[in-house]
């Protein structure tokens, strides 16, 4: 039986010269293929959704409009009108993570969101971007993030380190949450599916039922984690734009 973590191995699809060491940055791997597939799926979906642009929407258009309204309302509710400037980025983020998670549910496919390098890169970009936006809007006042108005001055020695740590830990929690959820879910599916094979036709029924249930749960978790990743981005954006 293959190791349950073998599914996460990044392997070049197009053979590329690398002498045992690191893959060159341009190496086209299964991870790259999954990312490109996500972009293609998204593009085809948007093409289907906006092909007719009818007043009374068809199926694809209805899904596209729901998605549009969903993200637009998320930003309006969490950030406000000024956050609409970042609507294209947040929309892209959600679509990228969501389709990545869903494509990962296909057998023999690759889940690029299960890699810490990918989630950390996105989280760091979001963290840096939000911090830059905060300083650009509020200048030096953005440091008030670490010492809220109205707090007694005596609490500063405790409050400032806590706030600072919680602020700096954002990219870690953001990236680890998505990476861990996707990785653990896929390992669990792999292990349970292994039981189905090793226990045979009769004994395998129980793990098969469990795997079926967990598969549904994994779809749900994939959607939920895409939502959580996006809404946390909105909340960080709100802190930067409106402060708290």
């Amino acid at each position, binding site marked *: 039986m293959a190791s349950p*973590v*073998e599914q*996460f*191995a*990044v392997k*070049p699809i197009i053979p590329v010269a*690398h002498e045992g*060491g*690191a*893959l*060159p*940055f*341009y*190496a*086209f*791997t299964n*991870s*790259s293929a999954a*990312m*490109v597939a*996500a*972009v293609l799926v*998204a*593009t085809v979906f*948007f*093409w289907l*959704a*906006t092909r007719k*642009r*009818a*007043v009374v*929407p068809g199926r694809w*258009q209805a899904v*596209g*409009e729901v998605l*549009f*309204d969903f993200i637009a309302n998320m930003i309006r509710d969490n950030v406000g009108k000024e956050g609409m400037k970042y*609507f*294209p*980025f947040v*929309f*892209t983020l959600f*679509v*990228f993570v969501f389709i990545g998670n869903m494509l990962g549910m296909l057998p023999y496919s690759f889940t*690029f969101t*299960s*890699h*810490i*390098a*990918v989630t950390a*890169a*996105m989280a760091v970009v979001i963290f840096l971007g939000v911090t830059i936006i905060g300083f650009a809007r509020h200048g030096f006042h953005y440091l008030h993030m670490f010492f809220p108005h109205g707090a007694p001055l005596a609490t500063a020695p405790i409050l400032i380190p806590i706030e600072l740590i919680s602020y700096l830990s954002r990219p870690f929690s953001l990236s680890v949450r998505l*990476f861990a959820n996707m*990785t653990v879910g896929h390992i669990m599916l792999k292990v349970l599916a292994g039981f189905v094979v090793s226990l045979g036709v009769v004994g395998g029924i129980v793990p098969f039922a469990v795997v079926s249930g967990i598969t549904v749960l994994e779809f749900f978790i994939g959607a939920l984690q895409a939502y959580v990743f996006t809404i946390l981005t909105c909340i960080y954006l709100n802190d930067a734009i409106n402060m708290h």
Partner: protein
Amino acid sequence: MPQFDPTTFASQLFWLAVTFVLLFIVVSRFAIPRLGEVLEQRQKLIADDLDRAHQLKAETEEAIRSYEKALAEARAKAHDVLRAAQDDIAKAADERNKAVNAALAEQIKQGEARIGKARDEALASVRDIAGGAAAAAVSRLAGLSPDEATVQAAVSGVMKESA
């Protein structure tokens, strides 16, 4: 775990950047404008329809108002016409009544005059006949022939008594 194998990081980060930027272009240049356009259009259509409905409603109410006004005017006019006609009829009836009454009174007066005359004539002829009859009775019973004046006097006396 393959996740912590740094030899693949460069490739992952490079393709993440490439695909994310690609998707960002698709979303911001293609998906959002087109989806936004259709939503805006629908919003506009609904707003326009609502506006038209409000306008039509106002027009309807205006039409109802003017109709009711015209109706009230027509009613008032009909009332006036009716009253004028009634007045005219009453006046004409009055006049005719008066004329007929006058004609009737005239006829009654003429009739009464005629009756009076006829009675006088009848009375005069009664006197003549009575005189004749008295003279005839006297000549038959007494063999006398009284003169005219005596008979007349006698008749007048009796008629005065019986009158």
